[in-house]
C-alpha cells in the first residue's frame, strides 16, 4: 500500500496535454473575451450553492470539525477531564484554606 501511495503522489503531478490541434488556453481566453448573456446562465443554483459554501467560514469550520471528528472527541474528553480535575483540586485547596 505504501508503494501505491508513493505512485499516487507522483500521479498527482501528471498533466495531460490536450491534442496538438487543440490550444485549450486560447479557446478559453477567446470564449471569455466573447461572453454572451446566455453564457451567464451557466451560474445556476448548484453553482451559487457551491460558491456560498466555499465562501462561508462557518461552513469550512463545520467541515473541518466533521473531518476531524475523532480528534475533536478526544480533545473534548481531555478538556472536560482537565476541567473536572482543576475544579476538584481548587475545591480541595479551598477546603484546606478554610480549615486553616
Amino acid at each position, binding site marked *: 500500500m505504501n508503494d501505491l501511495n508513493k505512485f499516487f503522489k507522483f500521479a498527482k503531478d501528471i498533466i495531460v496535454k490536450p491534442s496538438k490541434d487543440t490550444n485549450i488556453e486560447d479557446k*478559453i481566453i477567446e470564449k471569455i473575451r466573447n461572453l454572451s448573456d446566455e453564457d451567464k446562465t451557466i451560474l445556476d443554483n448548484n453553482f451559487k450553492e457551491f460558491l456560498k459554501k*466555499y465562501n462561508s467560514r462557518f461552513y469550512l469550520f463545520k467541515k473541518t470539525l466533521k473531518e476531524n471528528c475523532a480528534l475533536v472527541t478526544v480533545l473534548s474528553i481531555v478538556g472536560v477531564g482537565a476541567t473536572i480535575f482543576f475544579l476538584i483540586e481548587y475545591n480541595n485547596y479551598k477546603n484546606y484554606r478554610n480549615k486553616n
Partner: protein
Amino acid sequence: MVQKNNLEDFNKEKEEKIIDDKRLVERSKNGDKSAFEYLVRKYSKYVYTTAFFMLRDSQEAEDISQEVFVKVFLSIGGFRGLSSFKTWLRKLTVNTCIDKIRIKSKTADKKVSLDSMIEDGNDILLYEFNQNVEKFFQDKETVKEILKIIVNLDESYRIPLILRDLQDYSYVEISEILNKPVGTIKTNIHRARKIIRDTLDEKNKK
C-alpha cells in the same frame, strides 16, 4: 544543511506562488483581463487533466475546462480567498464534472484505453521526481500503468478513488459529493486499490 536550504527554497517558492495567485486574483477582481488570462494559462492544463480523468473523454474535458473558467471569470468578484485559488478551482472542477456525470452517465460503461487517448494526440507529462534517471523511467511506467487501470475502473470505484488519492478529498467530503454513506465510499476505495495492486502484481509476474 543542503536539505535545509532546499526546504527553505521550496517554501519560498511555494509562498511566492501563493502570493502570485493572490495578486492575480485581486487584479482580476478589479477587472484586469490580462491577469485573468494569466490564470487561465497557468491552470488550464491542470483543470483539463482533472476533468480528463474523471470523464475519460477529451472533448468533454475541454468543454468542462471552458465552463469552469467561464464560471470563475463571472464569479471571481465573490471569491473571498478562504482557501487558495488552486484549491477553489479544483473543487469547482470536480463539482462541475460530478454534475456532468449525474446528467449523463454515458462514460459509465465506456471501456477506455489510456494508450488510445494518448494516440488521439493527448500526451502525458510527468514532472520529474527527485531521483535517478533509471528509477524515474521505471516509476513513470508504473504510474502510467496505474492510470491505465484507474481509467478503466467501474465508475463507482473510479470517482471515489480519484477524489481520495489524486485530489486529496476527505471521505466525508466524497460521501457528501456522491450522496453515498462514508462506509460505502471507504469500501469502494479499498476495493479499487486492491484491483490496482492485484493487476500490477499479475503484470509483474508475467
